[in-house]
């Protein structure tokens, strides 16, 4: 088995990052301006990385497909951002945040990375406040905290339900400052089409100007991929419509390994699908489960009647309701972790107890809470969420219980990186949701924002400098080389193929079909047979896609169908890889649940003996099975335990 070099510094856990920073090689300020760095993506990780590198004096080129860097999907994060500040004096510490993150990730993440994340978390809050991020405050003028998902301290900083927005605007403003200074050149409405490697190192990208359709060559001494996750493989997810895996996937195809692709987080409280026209799913804050009770009817005929509109929830008497989470998990009840709650809902709906037209919805009922606390208290706590629900679902949740269903939300897997956040391609780095590094098999609430900003503001500036220190004698990278030529030609050929292929089906047709295959076979619960089938089906779908796709319009101009075509082509391939990974991992952990590996009570059963590793997949060529590399995870500071919520 190939040994992957994680490049974790020697020494005790708590000193690793300090030592790394002390030992890291630097680039002289006068040399920095001669060094180019490309950053793909302008979410929390990308915008903060571009701003920080620009500030240091590197010549940064930043890319986003949206019309402005401010629109990256980090903006949609609601809940908050964790940091071990211990402002509430409830016993929080760097170690505790580290421990909670490892445990929450079901013991499948790297200790050194997670500890560093916990360590810099406090800097993030200081930094953001200095930038003018308007976090919630108490009347005394100091920062407020809330508690979040399954931890015992209050360490989550928030800005109402718009924390992601406020943090992203902060990073966007820092980025804007560098753009005005000329240290960052911004390329809005540009899609990264491929990585260009010269002499084995990442030296640039091919990008498409989405307005003119022009194919552009951009060179750099290093490339950062911060383009987010791949949740849209499922077609329906809480991701933005444009969220895509192309940058990560091209990295993979140019030699970077892809880590743990099967780890997908499914959020239990989303507004269910209302019909075939559905284009995306909307998340409702997890906090609703604090006071809402989840149930389905005990009798199938009641569920049927509700689905057909003959009955409503109010017609079902108390004794005919199955509060299944309270029944199965009396200790945690409705507050079991995300993965457990999601799977339980799926199990009930698959058994025929779903309460909507599609059969895929369960009730989240506030009538007890309203009886107990009064409508006003419920409104004060959840008013804005109730309003949002009513706008989408057209039902008043004060009167009728809400209908909810799990939805794909976040992907823990991503491009494999070492301690430097560098991929297996020298000079190619990955940050934020695009990399696999910090969340193991399951991410804790309010940790995604933390990781994105940690990577961009505080980790990459050191590790990229360390890498580039050896590159100061490298002149500006020419875009006239054979490598750029070749990459550009391949990109153009692919685009020409899409435009000229006289198929009959639209991109969405294939995307929806892919989503269905992956959701049903590589979603909340997986098994060997389904996964093997799914691999077969995805392969067939890929063949059909390349045969029967129709893309209207032209290449040299704004063409949103053409943009989608390229993205979906990559999703199809990634979907297949997800199935390989899920098939390989013969255990259940975090977001990955294999039906064959469960306790007699139906709980996830980890296999630490054989599977305490990161699965890092290597691309072996078209129609070849990818090769698995294993990075063994060693736990020197934490003892592995089984999770239980009974």
């Amino acid at each position, binding site marked *: 088995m190939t040994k992957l070099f994680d490049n974790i510094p020697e020494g005790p856990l708590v000193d690793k990052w300090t030592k790394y920073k002390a030992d890291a090689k630097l680039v002289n300020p006068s040399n920095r301006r001669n060094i180019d760095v490309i950053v793909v993506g302008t979410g929390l990780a990308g915008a903060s990385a571009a701003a920080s590198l620009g500030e240091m004096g590197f010549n940064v080129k930043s890319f986003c497909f*949206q019309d402005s860097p*401010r629109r990256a999907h980090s903006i949609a994060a609601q809940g908050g951002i964790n940091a071990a500040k211990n402002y509430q004096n409830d016993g929080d510490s760097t170690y505790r945040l580290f421990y909670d993150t490892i445990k929450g990730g079901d013991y499948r993440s790297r200790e050194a990375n997670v500890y560093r994340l916990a360590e810099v978390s406090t800097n993030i809050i200081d930094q953001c*406040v200095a930038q003018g991020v308007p976090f919630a405050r108490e009347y005394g003028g100091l920062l407020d905290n809330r508690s979040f998902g399954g931890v015992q301290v209050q360490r989550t900083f928030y800005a109402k339900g718009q924390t992601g927005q406020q943090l992203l605007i902060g990073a966007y403003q820092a980025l804007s*400052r560098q*753009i005005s200074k000329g240290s960052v050149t911004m390329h809005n409405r540009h899609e990264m089409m491929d990585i260009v490697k010269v002499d084995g190192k990442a030296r640039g990208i091919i990008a498409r100007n989405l307005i003119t359709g022009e194919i552009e060559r951009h060179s750099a001494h290093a490339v950062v991929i911060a383009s987010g996750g791949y949740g849209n493989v499922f077609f329906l997810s809480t991701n933005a419509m444009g969220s895509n895996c192309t940058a990560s996937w091209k990295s993979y195809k140019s030699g970077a390994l892809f880590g743990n692709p099967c780890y997908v987080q499914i959020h239990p409280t989303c507004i269910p699908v209302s019909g075939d026209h559905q284009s995306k799913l909307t998340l409702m804050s997890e906090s609703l489960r604090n006071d809402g009770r989840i149930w389905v009817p005990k009798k199938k005929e009641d569920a049927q009647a509700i689905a057909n509109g003959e009955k409503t929830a109010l017609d079902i008497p108390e004794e005919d309701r199955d509060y299944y989470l309270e029944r199965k998990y009396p200790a945690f009840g409705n507050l079991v972790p995300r993965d457990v709650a999601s799977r339980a809902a799926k199990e009930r709906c698959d058994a025929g107890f779903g309460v909507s037209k599609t059969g895929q919805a369960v009730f989240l009922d506030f009538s007890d809470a309203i009886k107990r606390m009064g409508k006003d208290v419920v409104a004060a706590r959840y008013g804005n969420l109730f309003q949002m629900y009513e706008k989408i679902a057209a039902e008043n949740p004060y009167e009728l219980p809400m209908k909810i269903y799990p939805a794909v939300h976040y992907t823990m897997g991503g491009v494999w990186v070492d301690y430097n956040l560098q991929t297996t391609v020298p000079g190619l780095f990955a940050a934020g949701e695009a990399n696999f590094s910090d969340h193991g098999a399951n991410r804790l609430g309010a940790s995604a924002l933390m990781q994105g900003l940690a990577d961009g503001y505080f980790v990459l500036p050191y590790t990229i400098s360390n890498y580039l220190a050896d590159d100061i004698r490298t002149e500006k990278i020419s875009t006239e080389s054979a490598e750029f030529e070749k990459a550009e030609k391949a990109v153009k050929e692919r685009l020409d193929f899409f435009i000229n292929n006289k198929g009959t089906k639209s991109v969405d047709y294939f995307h929806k079909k892919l989503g269905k295959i992956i959701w049903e076979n590589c979603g909340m619960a997986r098994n060997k047979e389904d996964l093997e089938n799914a691999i077969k089906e995805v392969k067939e779908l890929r063949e059909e896609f390349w045969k029967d796709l129709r893309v209207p*319009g032209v290449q040299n101009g*704004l063409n*949103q*169908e053409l943009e989608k075509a390229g993205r979906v082509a990559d999703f199809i391939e990634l979907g297949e890889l997800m199935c390989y990974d899920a098939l390989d991992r013969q255990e259940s952990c975090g977001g990955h649940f294999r039906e064959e590996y469960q306790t007699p009570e139906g709980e996830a059963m980890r296999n630490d003996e054989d599977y305490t590793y990161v699965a890092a997949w290597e691309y072996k060529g078209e129609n070849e099975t990818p090769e698995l590399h294993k990075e063994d995870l060693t736990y020197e500071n934490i003892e592995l335990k089984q999770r239980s919520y009974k």
Partner: protein
Amino acid sequence: MNLTLKVWRQNGAEDKGRIVEYKISDISPDMSFLEMMDVLNGQLIDKGDNPVSFDHDCREGICGSCSMYINGEPHGPENLITTCQLHMRSFKDGDTIYIEPWRAAAFPVIKDLVVDRSAFDAIIQVGGYVSVNTSGNTQDANAIPIPKADADSAFDAATCIGCGACVATCKNSSAMLFTSAKISHLAHLPQGKVEAKERALNMVAKMDELGFGNCTNTGDCEVQCPKGISLDNIALMNREFLGASLKSEK
């Protein structure tokens, strides 16, 4: 539902553009407005026509991408939501719906319903930030207590999503609500006060330079803003700019 859509079609910036009528049927009231547009585009693709280009991304009302002028109003007939949050139940069977792009000299049409809003980025780039490096070695986040009321006002102004509805609905295509929201967000915080004067001068000058119109205090922007950004911010900007101009030595 069966609907008649009158959609602005414009094939590129140079094209003159025109309203094109489409009939669309079997629309479910549960669809979002953009899902209805997806259905329309599906039909167009099936017929071999070009689908209607429009900006959209998060589809949950926060990214600020979607930008349609629907039946004479930005983001359609409902208030305090974006186009992606508008649902077809806000319309009746048989309705005719006009769908147009944002109209402003500073927001040129790129194609169909897609406009170029990079002028907003340009306004932020001349001062819509606090000049602090991202070292992480700033002072502790709780070193300066900020009165809750100020923090809340800053937050309210900072919820602007930069969609451009304010400019679109303003008869003068003025960007004052957008610009003032950023000036106000930062002016309410001690961290932002240091550069407040310079910021107001630079951002207003940029806004003028980019060809946005003037504010005549009609208040349309405040009504149409999906985030309910208040005219209070414009008044604050007017104060800041006046003070800054009088003190400025340039």
